[in-house]
Structures are given as C-alpha cells and as structure tokens.
C-alpha cells in the first residue's frame, strides 16, 4: 500500500487547529499512518530523541514521508499514541531501571488496556521498544494483576505458557534446529550403546 493511499488515523484531530504545534507523521509496519502531537511524542524517549535529531520543520513533516516504525503494527501503535496523547504534558518517570514500588492504573489506561492478551503483550513490547516508561509500568502492572490468585494451571492458560514437558520439547527442538547433526550424533551414540560399546570414540 502506498503512503498516499494509507489510512490516516488522527489520534487527536480536534486539537490541531487550536495548538500551533507540530504534528509528526508515523507509519506502522502495516502502513497505517498516525499524526501525533509534539507534546505527546515526549512521552516516548526513543521517538522524542529521533524527532529532535531529525529537526523537521512544519513543511518537512507534511512533505517528507511519514517516519516508519517497522516493528510495530497499526493496531498496537494506535493504542500507544492514544495513551501518549492522553498523558501528554505529564511528568515522565526517570528510567533508572528500577521498578516503582506502587503503580496505580488510571481509569483511562484500564479502559485502553481492556484488550486481548496478545494485543496487551504487543503493547508492552512497543512501550519498551519506544521507551514509554509510564505506559510500560501500567501495562506490566496489568499483567501482574492478571496473575493474582491463579494456580499454575490457570497461569498456563492465561499467559499461553508451556508446561514443563512442552517447554523441554521446545528446547530440544530449538537445540536440534541449531545443530542438525545433534540428533544424528545422539542416535549414533544410542546405537553404539545398544551394541555394547563402552566408549563413544
């Protein structure tokens, strides 16, 4: 799909004529385009640094191609930018790698994250990738809350986690995929054992 024909999702359209601030254009990996205010972008350390480095003028924003975010799909990016627009101007927690002791999930965020688990994990991944500290905090808190009171079997269902057996099988498959000779070597070893050979060599 060309950029011209791509659907444009205005996250905060009503604000455009009022604020004379720049609205940057971003494109998801499935060619969905978004216009996001300069203030909202500040919530994302990664994007903020990027636009600062680009130094676009208002004309550049309109005339140059939308900034491509290759790793995130439109559905996820829409949630990300909705969150950024809602929380624009708010203080950004310092990202010192520590985990905040208390994380409250505001009502807006709770509604925004009322989504299926697959999309929630994509949102977390995007929040980490784009360094949106507070979005990462609330989305991780949501995942942590989902685990409350669940048995290991329930956790497996909710988070699509493997059992010990499945986990082992997946690891074996991955090891074999890494080294196709591994299975042959293993089989040969087994054969030699059956033949009564004590030493592999």
């Amino acid at each position, binding site marked *: 799909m060309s950029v011209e024909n791509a659907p444009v999702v205005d996250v905060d359209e009503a604000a455009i004529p009022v604020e004379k601030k720049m609205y940057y254009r971003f494109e998801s990996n499935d060619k969905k385009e978004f216009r996001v205010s300069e203030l909202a972008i500040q919530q994302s350390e*990664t994007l903020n*640094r*990027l636009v600062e*480095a*680009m*130094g676009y003028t208002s004309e550049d924003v309109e005339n140059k191609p939308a900034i491509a975010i290759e*790793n995130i799909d439109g559905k996820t990016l829409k949630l990300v930018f909705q969150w950024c627009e809602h929380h624009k101007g708010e203080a950004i927690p310092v990202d010192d*790698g520590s*985990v905040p*002791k*208390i*994380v409250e999930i505001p009502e807006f965020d709770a509604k925004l994250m009322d989504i299926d*688990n*697959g999309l929630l*994990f*994509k949102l*977390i*991944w995007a929040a*980490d*990738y784009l360094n949106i500290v507070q979005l*990462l*905090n609330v989305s*991780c*808190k949501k*995942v*942590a809350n989902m*685990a*409350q*009171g*669940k*048995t*290991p079997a329930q*956790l*497996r269902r909710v*988070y*699509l*986690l*493997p*059992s*010990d057996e*499945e*986990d*082992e099988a*997946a*690891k074996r*498959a*991955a090891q074999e995929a890494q080294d196709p000779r591994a299975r042959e070597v293993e089989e040969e070893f087994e054969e030699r054992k059956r033949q009564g050979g004590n030493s592999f060599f």
Partner: protein
Amino acid sequence: MYFEIVLFTYLEYFIWKLFVLSYSFLFGNVMNDAPLLNMPEVVMNKILELSDVRSILNFRKVCHSLRSYIDNIPPNTNCISISITVVTKKILVNCDFSDKKDTVITYYQDKKGCVVEYESNQKSFKNEDFIDIFANDLKTILHFQKDPLQRFSLSFKYEIHKNQVDDTSEIQQKLKEMLESRKSQLPVEKFVMNAFKGDQIMSILPSLNPKFLKEIWILDPTFWGDKLNSLDISEVAELNQWKSAKNIFIRRSVEPTAIPLFGHTKTAFLTFETITMDDVETMETTFLHSSTLKRLRFKYTRFTREQRLFDILGASFERPDGSEKNWYIRITKSEDILHVMYIPRIQNIAFSRIELTDVPVGAVIQG
C-alpha cells in the same frame, strides 16, 4: 554536519535497539510461542516485581523456562517481614511488604496430599508433604530477598487443651536444612522466636547473618509462662549472632548464671523463676562493667529475701501512687547515674544509665 552526526547516532541507537530485541528473540525463549517468555529482561523483571509473592511462586511452577528465569534473576519483592506460625499440622506464612498488601499463605496436609491456601484460593498438591512444599516456597521467597528482612519471626503455638507440645521437630529440621542450604546466611535485623528448648533456637539462629542482626527476641510459647524448665542459652550465647545483637529480649526463664552473657548488649530483658540478692548484685556488676549496656531489666517470679534489697539500697524515691521505688547512685569515674527501678506489681527490676539532668527533682543521689 552536526545534524548528520546526530542522525547517524540515533540511527545507530535504533540499530542497537533492534539488535537487542532480535537477540532476545533468537536466544531467549523464543522457541516457545508464549509472549511472556519472549519479553525482554527489563520487562520480565518489571512484571515479576509488580506481582504478589504467591503469583511469583506459582509462575515458578508453570514451566522450566520461568523457573530458571526467576531463580537466576530473582525479583525483589520488597518484603520487610516474614512471620511463620506453626499450629497443629498447619503452617502459616505471613509476608509484609513495603509496597503491597500483606500476604498469608497456609499449608496443611489432607488425605490426598498438601493443601495450600492463599486468600480465597486453594490448591492441592497430590501426594506431596505440606512441610516440603512450605520449605520450598519459603526458600524461594527468601531467595527473592535483596534487602535485609526487618523482622523474621517463628512461632510454635501451644495447644493448651492437650497440655502438651505438638511435635514440631520435623518442621524445625526442614527449616534448618532449608536455611543451611542457602548460599549465604539470611540477612535479618530482628529475629523473634518462641522456644521451648535451646535447640529450637540453634536450628535457626546460626543461619542468620550476624552482620545485620540487631535484635533477638525469645518469647514464651505458653500463655502464662509456666510449666517449662529454664531455657539453656549457653550454646546460643556462643554464636556470633548472639554476640553481635545489640538488643536481646528473653521472655523465657533462664538461670541467673546467664546474666554475664548479656554484658555486650545495649538493652537487655531477662526472665527468672527465682532470684536472690546475690543475683541482683551480679546484675549490677555486669551492668556497671559493661561499656555498652544502657538498660538491663529483668522479671522474676520469686525474689528470695526481697527485704535485703531495701536494706542495702536505703531510702527510695517513690512515685506518688507508690507503684515503683527508685534509687539513684553515682557511678564511679563517670558523669552518669545508675538508676535502679523496682516495680513490684509486675515483678520487674531495671538498671539504667542516665544523665544527671534526668534525675527527678527531690530524689537523693547516693555515692
């Protein structure tokens, strides 16, 4: 030129970020389809540290990948206090956190195996022993602990109707083994335990890190504190943990010969069945010879020939309600005053080192 350099730097940043994420995908747990297992380490840590402790214990039981992740990078649960209560065939673990609501996990045995209760949830582990499950869970909880625990308490409940103590030796032994299997001694600031015998204390105390231990509290497992022989603390007092504790509070009766074992503390409380004036004098000598003791207090059940105390100390300064007698004695080669307080209602005598300005108006200073 500057613009190009900055742009290049950020392009590098993006490439690096992509590399990190790709690495995580390729060499992490991506062989599984579970999105949780494919999360970068920083995200996983955040999710786990924001989870309650029971959830983390359950995550560990889901699969190898999560178990090894949690064991290798233990999340800090910000636990400040752990209390273990042992009642008849039941163990309760109460964890207090600085940032989350308290958690109580109960373990007991039923016909099929072990039952674990947490809030309104109940989980059965078929053919498992409740003491093993408890010890494993506790080991994991303690493994998460990064800062010293402010309080670690162990309480064996006394079944008064049976007029006998339940056999808790198996629990005690498993706890001992679990604590000894740790790579390092458990950092605890305040250790509280009710104990029938010295070996119960010896099963736990040596596994605590003396560097962090400030207080030791040994309580009486019976409500009225009767029918128990004196607690032998001679072995316990040999431990570095004992020697480094600044405050020791013993509510179980000990023999008066144990008095000098408290000379290194800052504050101490002892309990005796029977004392004589000789014991009180030993107490005073221990107190005055100690360079650290600020307050030494004891409780007794019987004071043989109590009148001798008043004969020796002379006239006392009494409170208007007559609830206590006080004597103030100048300490040789010191500016401080020895304050002896006698409270007959609760059968307590206390020695304190106070400043001259703290002596009440009207009180006589002897010596």
